[in-house]
C-alpha cells in the first residue's frame, strides 16, 4: 500500500494529568518518531515489530529531555489508518504534549487536520459504511472552518505583514519568471545579489514572528480571549469572576469601562489572556468611541471571543453587532445575569447561530462558570470533534507553515549562493509564497502570471 505523507496530532482528549498521546501516521512515521524519541535500551524504532513498545524519552534536538515516554509501533496495515503508525505515550499533559507534537512537526511530520486520521482509515478500507457519514461531517466541518477568516493569531494579528512578504516574494518571482519565459524581451535581469539580501531580510522578519508564535509560547504567555458585549452586560463582572478578584471598575452605569484591561486567568491550567473591552455600541462620547474601536480590534486579534448577551434585558440592535463580530472567530455565547428573570428566549439566538457553543451564566450565583472553563479547555485542546477547528492547533498549524516557508527561503538563498539558475531559485520562492498564502487563506491562482504581465511589457 502506498502511504500518504506523515501527519501528527495529539490523540488524547484535553485535560491535565494522566497519559497524553502524540500519534503519527504515514510513510515516514517511524523515522519521524525515531528523530524525537530516544529508547532506553539499544536499538531504534525502525527495527521494531508491529505492536512492539519501547520505553525511553522524548528528546529535543538540543538534547533537552522533554518527557519520559513509551513508543508503540504499529506497522502498515496493522493500524487504525492502515499506514505505519507510532504512538508516543507521554506522561505530562498540556505543555509537554505540545512540545512533543512540535518536535514531530520539526522532524518532518505535518499537523493533522481534524478528522484526518479517520479519513485515512476510511479511505484505506478500515471503517465501514455506517461510519462514513460521520467522516463526511468531520471533513465538511473543516471546509467551513477553512473558509472562515483564519482564526489563528498569525493570520489575525500579522496578516498585513504576511501579505507584504507575499507581495515582495511575488514581485521577485514574477521578475524571475518573466526573464525565463521571455528571454528575448527587453527586461533587465534580476540582480541576484540584491535579491538575496532582500530574502535575508524577509527571513529575519519571519524568524522574529516565528519566535513570538512558538507553540509552547501560547501556554507560557496565554491564549488571547476578548470579552465583548454591549454596555453593562456584565463583561467586567465576568472578568473579575475569572480572575477571582476585583480589578475592573464595575458599576451599573453603561460605559464605565473606558479602557481595555488585559489580565491573565488560569483556566484548567491554560493561561487565558482576557481582554475586557468597552461596550460595543454607537456613541458620541469621544473617549468611549475610542474604547469601542478598541473592542473591535481586540476581538479581531483575539483567538477566542466570549460574546455576552444580557439575559435580563430584551435583545437590542447592538447585540446584532456583537454576534456579527463573534461569528468571525472561535467564540462562546454567554447569556449573563441568569439569576434575574429572563427577558428573551435564548432559543432566538441559538436558532440564529446553531453551531455556536452557548451557556447561561451568572457571576452572582456562579452558575455556568464551571461549564465555561470546561468549554474553554476543550476549545484549546480540541481533539477531533467536528466543527472544532481548535484555537490552539490553528496557532501550531500557522507556526508550522511559517517554519516551512522559512525553510524554503533558506533553500532559495542556498540556490543563489551556489550559483544555480533562475529556474531553480524560483522553485523554492514559489514554495515559500504558497506556504505564506496558506496562513492568510489566500489560494494559489493565476497570480504569478498576472503579476508577470502587470509588471513587464512583454511579447513581440
Amino acid at each position, binding site marked *: 500500500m502506498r502511504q500518504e505523507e506523515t501527519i501528527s496530532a495529539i490523540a488524547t482528549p484535553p485535560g491535565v494529568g494522566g497519559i497524553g498521546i502524540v500519534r503519527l501516521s504515514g510513510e515516514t512515521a517511524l523515522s519521524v518518531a525515531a528523530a524525537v524519541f530516544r529508547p532506553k535500551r539499544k536499538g531504534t524504532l525502525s527495527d521494531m515489530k508491529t505492536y512492539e513498545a519501547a520505553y525511553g524519552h522524548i528528546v529535543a534536538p538540543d538534547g533537552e529531555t522533554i518527557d519520559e515516554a513509551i513508543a508503540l509501533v504499529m506497522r502498515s496495515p496493522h493500524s487504525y489508518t492502515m499506514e505505519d503508525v507510532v504512538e508516543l505515550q507521554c506522561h505530562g499533559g498540556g505543555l509537554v504534549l505540545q512540545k512533543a507534537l512540535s518536535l514531530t512537526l520539526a522532524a518532518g511530520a505535518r499537523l493533522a487536520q481534524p478528522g484526518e486520521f479517520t479519513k485515512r482509515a*476510511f479511505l484505506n478500507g478500515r471503517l465501514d*459504511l455506517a461510519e*462514513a457519514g460521520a467522516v463526511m461531517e468531520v471533513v465538511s466541518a473543516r471546509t467551513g472552518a477553512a473558509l472562515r477568516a483564519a482564526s489563528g493569531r498569525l493570520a489575525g494579528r500579522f496578516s498585513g505583514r504576511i501579505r507584504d512578504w507575499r507581495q515582495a516574494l511575488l514581485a521577485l518571482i514574477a521578475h524571475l519568471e518573466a526573464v*525565463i519565459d521571455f528571454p528575448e524581451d527587453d527586461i533587465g535581469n534580476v540582480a541576484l545579489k540584491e535579491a538575496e539580501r532582500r530574502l535575508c531580510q524577509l527571513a529575519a522578519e519571519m524568524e522574529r514572528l516565528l519566535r513570538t508564535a512558538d507553540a509552547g509560547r501560547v501556554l507560557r504567555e496565554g491564549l488571547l480571549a476578548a470579552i465583548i458585549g454591549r454596555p453593562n452586560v456584565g463583561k467586567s463582572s465576568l472578568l473579575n469572576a475569572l480572575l477571582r478578584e476585583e480589578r475592573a471598575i464595575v458599576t451599573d452605569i453603561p460605559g464605565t469601562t473606558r479602557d481595555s484591561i488585559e489580565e491573565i486567568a488560569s483556566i484548567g491550567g491554560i493561561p487565558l489572556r482576557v481582554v475586557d473591552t468597552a461596550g460595543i455600541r454607537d456613541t458620541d462620547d469621544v473617549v468611549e468611541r475610542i474604547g469601542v474601536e478598541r473592542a473591535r480590534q481586540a476581538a479581531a486579534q483575539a483567538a477566542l471571543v466570549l460574546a455576552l448577551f444580557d439575559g435580563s434585558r430584551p435583545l437590542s440592535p447592538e447585540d446584532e453587532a456583537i454576534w456579527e463580530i463573534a461569528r468571525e472567530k472561535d467564540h462562546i455565547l454567554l447569556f449573563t445575569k441568569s439569576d434575574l428573570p429572563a427577558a428573551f428566549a435564548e432559543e432566538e439566538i441559538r436558532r440564529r447561530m446553531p453551531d455556536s457553543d452557548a451557556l447561561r451564566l451568572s457571576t452572582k450565583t456562579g452558575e455556568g462558570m464551571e461549564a465555561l472553563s470546561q468549554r474553554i479547555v476543550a476549545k484549546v485542546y480540541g481533539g477531533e470533534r467536528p466543527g472544532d477547528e481548535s484555537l490552539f492547533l490553528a496557532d501550531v498549524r500557522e507556526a508550522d507553515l511559517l517554519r516551512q516557508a522559512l525553510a524554503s527561503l533558506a533553500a532559495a538563498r542556498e540556490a543563489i549562493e551556489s*550559483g544555480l539558475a533562475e*529556474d531553480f531559485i524560483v522553485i523554492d520562492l514559489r514554495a515559500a509564497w504558497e506556504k505564506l498564502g496558506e496562513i492568510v487563506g489566500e489560494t494559489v491562482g493565476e497570480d504569478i*502570471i498576472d503579476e508577470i504581465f502587470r509588471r513587464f511589457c512583454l511579447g*513581440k
Partner: protein
Amino acid sequence: MFNAGDYDVIVIGAGHAGAEAGLAAARLGCRTLLATLSMDNIALMPCNPSVGGPAKGHLVREVDALGGEMGLNADRTCIQFRLLNTGKGPAVQALRAQADKKRYQFTMKETCENQDNLDVKQLLIDDIVIEDGRVAGVVAETGEFYGAKAVILATGTYLRGRVIVGETVYDSGPNGQRAAMKLSDSLRRAGVRLMRFKTGTPARVDGRSLDYDKLIEQPGEDDAPSFSFLTDEVTRRNRVVCWLSYTNEKTHKIIMDNIDRAPMANGVIKGIGPRYCPSIESKLLRFPDKDRHQLFLEPEGLHTREVYVQGMSTSLPADVQIAFLHTIPGLEHCRVMRAGYAIEYDCIDPRQLNPTLEFKAIGGFFSAGQSNGTSGYEEAAAQGLMAGINAAMLVKGGEPLVLKRSDGYIGVLIDDLVTKGTNEPYRMMTSRAEYRLLLRQDNADLRLTDYGRRVGLVTEERWRRYQQKKAQIESALTALEETVISPSRETNEKLAAAGLSPVHVVTRLFDFLRRPDVAYRDLQPLFGLPEISAEAARQVDITVTYDGYIRKQQEQVDRQEKLENRLIPEDIDYQAVPSLRDEAREKLATVRPRSLGQAGRISGVSPADVSVLMVYLERQRRAGRPAKEETP
C-alpha cells in the same frame, strides 16, 4: 442531400492543428478528410515566422516524440536556429527557429498529400450534422454532405473572422483569406458556447528598403540542436540573420497623437486580446513610462523580400503605421508591403471539452487549436495531434490518450484549457508548469515515446533510437553508481591530467559527477565507463547534477498521482453529494472533472471539497458501484 463520401474522421481546417490532426488520424489507419478553405494555404503562418521558444519549443519536441509532424517540418524548412536561455537551467533552455514560411507550408502540404488514408480537399464547411447527440458529418457550402464517425474542429481564426485596420473593417480570415461565416451558427445550434477573441499582426516591410547599418545583427547559432529526435546533425542551416532596433519618443508621439484612431482603444474592437502579444499601442497605453520598445526584423523566407516587424503588432490606420515605422532607426525609408491588422474571431469555451478534446455533450466531436481559445502555432499543433489521436482511438475503439501535467507541456496545456478555461488567447509558458524541472525539451522523447508507441504513431526508426538512448543512459548511470574511486595518488594524478580537481575521500563516481565542473564525457575515458552518445551523456549529466531537485519534484508528482488516478464517474450527480459548498458544487457541475486531481485545480474548489468528494466516491464504491481506477 448529396453524400460525397463517408470518412472515419473529418478535420475542418488545415492549419497547424488541422494538419497534425489529419496526419495522426490517417497514420492510425482512419480514412480521413482534411478540409481546407484554400489548397494554397495549408499550414499557413499568418503571423510571425518563428517556431519554438520557451515552452513552445518544448511543445514542438513533445509533438515530435509522440510521432507528430511539426518538429520534422520545422527542421526541414527553418533558416535560422537559436537555443535560448543557455545561461539558465536545462529545463528552460529552448530552441527557437525562423521558418521560411512558404517552404514550411509547401513541405507540410506535400506531406499531407502523400499520406495514405488522407484526402485533402478545398472545402468551406458551413454545417456540422449531429444526430442523437453524436456527430454524423459535415455539409460544405457547395451543398454536399460528408459523413464521419468523428469530426475535429480546427478552424483557427476563421470563424466569423473580422479584420480591422484603423477605420477599415471587413469580414475575412487572416491574410485576405475567406472567413467561415456560417459555421458559428451551426455550432450555436448544437449548443456550443462561443467566445470572441482578438489577435493581431504587424506590418511586413521590404527588406531592400532597410538601412542595415543602423540595425543590430542577431545571428543564428550553428551548434543549436534540432526540433526532431529523428533529425541528424545538419550543416549550414543558418541562412539568414535577424535584426534588432528600438522605438523612440518620436514613434510614441505619433502613436499617441493618433490613439483615438486605434480600434482597440476607441471601442471598434470588442474581442479580448492576449496580454503577452500586445499591439504597440497597447504597450504604450499600459506602460507609459517605458521610453523605448524593442523590435526584431525577421526575414519571412529565402525567396521573398518581406520582413516581419516583430514587436510592432498594430491595428492603427495604414497612414499612421507608415508614419511611426519611419521614425525607427533603420526603418526611416522602409516600404510597407503589407499593413498590420487586428483580427477578431469566434472560438469555443474549452471547458466544454473532455481532456481528450472531445465535446462532453457531443459524441465524436472534437476541437483543437485556436478554436479552443489558444494562440500560437505550437499550441495548435499539440492540440491537433492529441485530437487526431483521440478521434482515431474513438473510431478504432482504442484507449484514449490523456497526458498528465507531469507527462508534458501538452498535458499542462490541455488540462488548463478544459479545467480553468481561458479569458484571453492562451499562450504556453514554462511558468505554467508546476513540474517544470521534469518537463525538459531534452527529455521529451524519454517522457513521451512510450505513449506514442502505444497509440501507434511511433515508427520503428524512432522506437529504435529511443530504446538505444534509454539503454545508454541506464548503463552509464549504473556504472556511475557502481564505480568507486579512492583518493590514491594514481587516481588523483589521473584526474589532474584531465584537468579535474582531486578527491580526498572514497567517492562514488555518481557523486563525483555532481561537481559543477565535471561532465560525463570527462570521466568516461578515465574510468572505462560505457561509451554513449552526446545526447545520452547530456541526460546523464542533468540527471546527476540536479538529482536533488529532480527527486523532490518527482516526489510531488507521485503524491499528486494518487488523486489523478482516482477517476470520477462521468454521470456523477453533484447535487447528491452532501456537504459540498455551493460554489464548489456549481463549479464541479460545470467543468465535470475527470479525476479528483483535476477537480482540485478548478478555481473555487478547495482541498476540503476534494476530500468531501473523495469520501463520497469511496462510499458509493462500497455501496456496490464499481468506481473506476485507472491503471497509470
